[in-house]
């Protein structure tokens, strides 16, 4: 089965999810061709084990993001029966547009794939898991960190194709993110605060811990809705970001069902809350019943010893 994998970029290189997409494609018996939009990461892509071919698609349209234009350019180069992309905002848009262009169905945000093609994915933000089958040809997007990554050591051919498309979305102004802090969607470790932090200024204590362990700082919906200083980009949960870090530390978060939906698949969860009956303890691997005022200074001391 020919599978076209849309490489996911991050800055000037490949996002780690790209090797996971290749691994997943191989797991259903696919021979993956990688498409690199704008040529980003093509050399790196060629070294992923199992990739048979890398096509670097270059054109003026790749200068800024217009999902429709990117999809049109990529689609005219893409072969294959099955299209696989990352379930990132851009990956979802490109794959959905390519699927519509081809008149084929798309299943988004899969966390499991088996030959057939059987797709497993969380629905209702993880409150249930759905298993379905989809007939080829189709498009499927995959959630990051849900699939084993293909290894390195590959040596695929790289070809370059000049292919652009008309851009309909003109970028007028780019507004940089305030601060240099890691995005919760990208982070391996997240420390999040809830309304139990009492005041948005107290998030500085979370920042200090985050800096010690290279973590991103997140927030519950209650915190984001209550305090203007806490932006929605920090929100973890059903109307925020769904995250799967290896360590999630929830501080002063009671654990509303919307929040649990966004973080329950984290590998390890630590909860710090003064209320022993808080629902967050139900999903925590390590629960500490304490106020954040007591626990965070202790945490800083202990992390400092590592």
């Amino acid at each position, binding site marked *: 089965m020919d599978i076209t994998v849309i490489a996911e970029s991050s800055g000037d290189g490949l996002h780690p999810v790209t090797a996971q997409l290749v691994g997943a494609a191989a797991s259903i018996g696919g021979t993956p061709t990688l498409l690199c939009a704008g040529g980003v990461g093509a050399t790196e892509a060629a070294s992923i084990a199992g990739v048979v071919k890398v096509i670097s698609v270059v054109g003026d349209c790749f200068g800024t*993001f217009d*999902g*429709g234009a990117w*999809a049109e350019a990529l689609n005219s180069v893409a072969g294959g029966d099955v299209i696989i992309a990352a379930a990132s*905002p851009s990956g*979802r*848009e490109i794959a*959905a*547009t390519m699927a*519509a262009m081809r008149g*084929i*169905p*798309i*299943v*988004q*945000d899969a966390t499991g794939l088996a030959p057939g093609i059987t797709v497993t994915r*969380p*629905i*209702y933000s993880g*409150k*249930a*898991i759905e298993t*379905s*089958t*989809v*007939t080829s040809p*189709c498009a499927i997007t995959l959630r990051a960190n849900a699939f084993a990554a293909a290894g390195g050591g590959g040596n695929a051919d790289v070809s370059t194709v000049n292919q652009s498309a008309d851009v*309909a*979305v003109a970028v*007028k*102004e*780019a*507004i940089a*993110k305030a601060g240099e802090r890691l995005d919760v969607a990208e982070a391996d470790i997240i420390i999040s605060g809830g309304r139990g932090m009492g005041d948005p200024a107290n998030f500085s204590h979370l920042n200090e811990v985050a800096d010690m362990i290279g973590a991103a700082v997140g927030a519950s919906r209650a915190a984001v809705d209550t305090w203007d200083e806490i932006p*929605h980009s920090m929100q973890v949960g*059903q*109307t925020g970001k*769904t995250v799967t870090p*290896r*360590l999630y530390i929830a501080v002063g978060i009671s654990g*509303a*069902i*919307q929040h649990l*939906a966004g973080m*329950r698949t984290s590998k*390890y*969860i*630590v909860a710090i809350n003064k209320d*022993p009956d808080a629902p967050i*303890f139900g*999903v925590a691997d*390590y*629960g*500490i*019943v*304490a106020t954040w005022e*007591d626990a965070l200074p*202790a*945490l800083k001391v202990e992390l400092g010893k*590592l």
Partner: protein
Amino acid sequence: MLLKQVPDTTAKISVSGGRVDESAVSKWSMSPYDEYALESALQLKEAGGGEVVAITCGPARAAKMLTDAAAVGADSLLHILVEDLSTLDSTQVQAILAAAVARTDSDIVFCGKQAADTNAGSTGPGVAHLLDASCVTMVSEVTSDGGSITAMRASAGGNERVAVSAPCVFAFDKGITELRRPNVRGIMMAKKKVAETLSPADLGVDTGGSSVSTKGHTPPLEKPPGQQFEGAESVAEVVGKLRDEANVI
């Protein structure tokens, strides 16, 4: 304005007999991202004129959501009746919605970036392609000076202000504006507003032969109960376990 009714985000989801039990859902609501899109559509109408048509594709219970949309200011309502959306694949849903939009002669389409049930996000881009419209996703705000339309969207580096011309589709993230609440007059007026109800066949869309078939649902894997500690003095022990037992720091 494309809307979808979903279980409220506060609602519990239970699985019985290998399927999500919809009858056990305590409350159905407009999908949260759609609410932000609707707010923005109403603001655009107030600033520059036009009419907001609320469209949904879904079962009979979704009529309540259309009435809610009318109560905050949607001018007319169009309900494409499909009792079980899970019997349709993305191509069919998009064909229905694109045909519905075309029927209303709308040139700006608002929707949520994804619905809070399937969390897919295919509808906006797919409908845009079918309507030969440009598409902007992850939108938080839309303004117009009469001619060009400007949207704020989330980008990898922060935010971007982008310009597009109609026809166009805006798929909304959680916005920055406060959502309006219906007032008594709006609620009374909405009760009198009758949705036009059509079938997919009325729009010329064939709903047979979906390429995707649902095999079953399961509840999320229950984690084994975790370890509980008392007081800040236990932090040292937990950090030790994170290092030695979990190997995550």
